[in-house]
């Protein structure tokens, strides 16, 4: 167990294993996402209440789900950074924060465009929307804080603390639609209940969520490798990998 844990923290080991998984993550992600999107756009039945505008759900839910999921992963990595000082955990936080920022922006943007024909407004200071906006600022804050501190170790610690403090926002996002039931509709998927949509709607939605998850995995690998290469360029293994063309 401990040996595995140590291996997991080794940038060299991660580099080798991620290079092997990356093509599969990308191919699987693109295929699943495209299948979900094409099915959702052209073949899923129309919503009886919202008409065709509901087809935005096939990218809105995946991006919103990933925006929160990435933050939870980042927070777990931040905890590992603080407790075990594992280098790779810090690399993960720095590599995925910009991805989280883009995903949160996409969730807010698609939500606003969906809101116009459905609610009659682009934006409202509803609890769900506001807490998502705060999530976007948290991602921005993480990136800014990391850039503001030159020393690698102090930056890692400061960023980890910020990420962990911000985790309080995640349950607020999740339960906002139940605590303050305003305009935003409640969740489509719940672990404990059957989905509130017919299968022709929720299967493509699930496909695009899974697809985006895999694409995120690929993005995380590419960006973590970039960060590892720039940090470890003075080590012998990076030199070997680069000169033998194994990167």
């Amino acid at each position: 167990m401990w040996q595995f844990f140590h291996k997991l923290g080794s940038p060299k080991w991660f580099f080798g294993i991620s290079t092997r998984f990356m093509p599969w993550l990308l191919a699987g992600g693109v295929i699943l996402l495209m299948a979900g999107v094409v099915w959702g756009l052209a073949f899923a039945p129309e919503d009886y209440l919202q008409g065709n505008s509901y087809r935005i759900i096939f990218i809105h839910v995946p991006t919103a789900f990933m925006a929160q999921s990435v933050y939870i992963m980042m927070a777990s990595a931040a905890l590992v950074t603080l407790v075990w000082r594992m280098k790779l955990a810090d690399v993960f936080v720095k590599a995925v924060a910009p991805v989280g920022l883009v995903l949160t922006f996409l969730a807010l943007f698609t939500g606003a465009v969906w809101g116009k024909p459905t609610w009659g407004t682009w934006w409202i200071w509803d609890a769900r929307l506001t807490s998502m906006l705060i999530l976007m600022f948290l991602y921005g804050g993480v990136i800014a804080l990391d850039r503001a501190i030159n020393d690698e170790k102090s930056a890692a610690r400061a960023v980890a603390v910020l990420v962990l403090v911000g985790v309080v926002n995640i349950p607020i996002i999740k339960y906002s639609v139940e605590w303050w039931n305003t305009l935003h509709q409640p969740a489509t998927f719940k672990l404990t209940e059957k989905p509130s949509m017919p299968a022709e709607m929720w299967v493509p939605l699930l496909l695009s969520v899974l697809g985006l998850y895999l694409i995120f995995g690929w993005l995380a690998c590419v960006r973590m490798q970039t960060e590892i290469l720039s940090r470890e360029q003075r080590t012998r293994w990076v030199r070997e990998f680069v000169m033998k063309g194994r990167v």
Partner: protein
Amino acid sequence: MAFDSFSAFIAMEGHGPYVWACYAVFFVLMLLMMIGSVRSRKAIVESCRRGYEFQADKSKVAASPPPSASFARVNVSQD
């Protein structure tokens, strides 16, 4: 198909602009992020390689045979 014709698919009963704007922004941003990530990875690999080659050249110069004329101090007996 949920639509009767291609033009109905594009129009989406008036919701077309909203739906297509969302999908366009989504795909453009995702692609930009993916291409950008691959590019910066390539850039760091390239800069590493150049750095190593530069180091290798320097060590080659240091290892090359000394020139025939040298300014090294030679100990000559004063007797």
